[in-house]
């Protein structure tokens, strides 16, 4: 104890002697300066500018004229905006919800097999690393009504020449399918990390207490009120949940962020999603 205090004292003394506090202030600021300038210019300036331009009428040629909230009124009234808003919701929920279930299911499957799972994981993860534009090109070709790869499945089932990307009803589900393909492995890995970090003892304890597999799974999933196995085990339940809950929250945040990627495909294919 004494030694530690002495060490701290000497450290404070040397810090004073060589003027560390001052050094820290100066050099800390110098080292942070590139970031201060960079984020101010390339992030905060554009954000402020976005807000500012939204109150102006401006065609980028004549000088901008202040208009107040008119742009917002026009936007909210336009049926095009309503349509795109609805399509965005359709896309976002249509992608996110299946991804949650498929990714979690696959993660549970992976968690079962301890030996060769890394090899599988590498294969499963490939869609995430390839460029989105490449994925779009490959899938566009796979979706071709008469020569696409999907005809291998649909033709024996009796469907011929399905207009995957050109029919207004099928286009969005087709894009959603591609997004699920490209997105699921990412969330699977995140779920898997959460599942792996749950100590085996919890599962075993729950099983000894008479919880069936489904109940154990629910408890792990984190909804402590719904997780079925008797209130008596609440403390156990409570101890289980922290391990996957932050992972879930993290996952949901990422899913939302990554859906900006839909833009490029819509732009890619000139079909209308109306």
């Amino acid at each position, binding site marked *: 104890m004494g030694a530690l205090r002495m060490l701290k004292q000497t450290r404070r003394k040397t810090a004073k002697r060589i003027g560390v506090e001052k050094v820290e202030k100066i050099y800390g600021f110098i080292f942070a300066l590139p970031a201060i300038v960079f984020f101010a210019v390339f992030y905060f300036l554009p954000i402020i500018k976005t807000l500012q331009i939204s109150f102006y009428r401006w065609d980028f040629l004549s000088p901008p004229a202040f208009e107040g909230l008119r742009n917002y009124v026009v936007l909210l009234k336009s049926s095009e905006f309503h349509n795109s808003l609805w399509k965005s919701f359709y896309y976002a929920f249509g992608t996110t919800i299946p991804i949650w279930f498929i990714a979690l299911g696959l993660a549970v499957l992976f968690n079962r097999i301890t030996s060769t799972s890394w090899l599988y994981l590498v294969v499963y993860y490939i869609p995430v690393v390839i460029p989105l534009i490449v994925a779009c090109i490959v899938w566009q070709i796979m979706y071709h009504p008469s*020569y696409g790869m999907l005809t291998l499945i649909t033709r024996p089932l009796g469907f011929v020449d399905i207009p995957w990307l050109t029919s207004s009803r099928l286009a969005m589900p087709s894009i959603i399918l591609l997004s699920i393909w490209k997105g699921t492995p990412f969330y699977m*890995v995140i779920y898997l990390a959460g599942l792996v970090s749950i100590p085996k003892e919890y599962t075993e304890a729950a099983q000894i207490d008479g919880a069936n597999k489904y109940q154990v799974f629910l408890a792990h999933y984190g909804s402590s009120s719904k997780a079925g196995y008797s209130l008596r085990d609440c403390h156990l339940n409570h101890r289980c949940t922290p391990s996957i809950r932050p992972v879930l929250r*993290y996952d949901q945040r990422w899913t939302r962020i990554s859906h900006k990627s839909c833009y490029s495909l819509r732009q890619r294919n000139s079909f209308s999603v109306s």
Partner: protein
Amino acid sequence: MKAVKKAFTQHILWHLALLLGAIVIIFPIIYMFSASFMPLEEVFSTPVRLWPSRPRLLNYSEIFTKFSLHRYFLNSVLLTVFTLVCNIFFCSLVGYSLAKFKFPGRDILFTLILATMMIPSNVIVIPLYLLIRSLGWVNSFWGLSFPHVIAPFGVFLMRQFIRSIPDDYIDAARIDGCSEFKIFYRIIMPLSLPAIATLSVVTFVNIWNLFLWPLIVISSDAKKTLPIALNQFLSNYANDWNLLMAASVVATSPILLFFFVFNRGFIEGMTGLSGLKE
């Protein structure tokens, strides 16, 4: 004995399920590779062919001679390498300053940097373009690369990692008369190599796959990056599927190669798991 047998069959079933899933997931990629070796009439055959009857490399030589894909490839490599080096240097420098120095406004700065992670990049693309235009950087390498020189995620990652390096290393170096900048590149950088590896992977994938920003900034053909060139290729040669697939293979192969070599670091880096662990 019965229990063992049951466990064994269950194990086999799990494996079969995973194998089936793997085939479904990998299928488009395999098709991309096999179609890139086919002549055009084999691509457009009914029923659909899975393998080329005689694999040929003509498609590849054609995309390099007719479409000069190597130029776009080089542009992409240049952009990725430059941004990677800048990110490694600046993110660790700023991360170091945020982790180990006490200066007024430090916590506010860190919060603001974190806040920028929440903003979708599409929202600021137009004002950013206006800014680049006023700097005279439209259709230039600087305009393309500069907005990506420091990534907020990279700063966050490096700061979290450098915080776990004991102060004693820095103090000892200071007492020995090491200059502040030398402490950074002789002590902090080598010690934070694991985090730098993660940062490199994330930056590499993000920049190599970058689409929207180069699409807006770059207008001349000679300066296009691979994703933009592919986009253009798709509209010009929409019916030459075999060439499209060959170009896609070229655009994907560097990432796939790195992925197969550093797969563990790749997966942990991209999902941010190694960053969260501390």
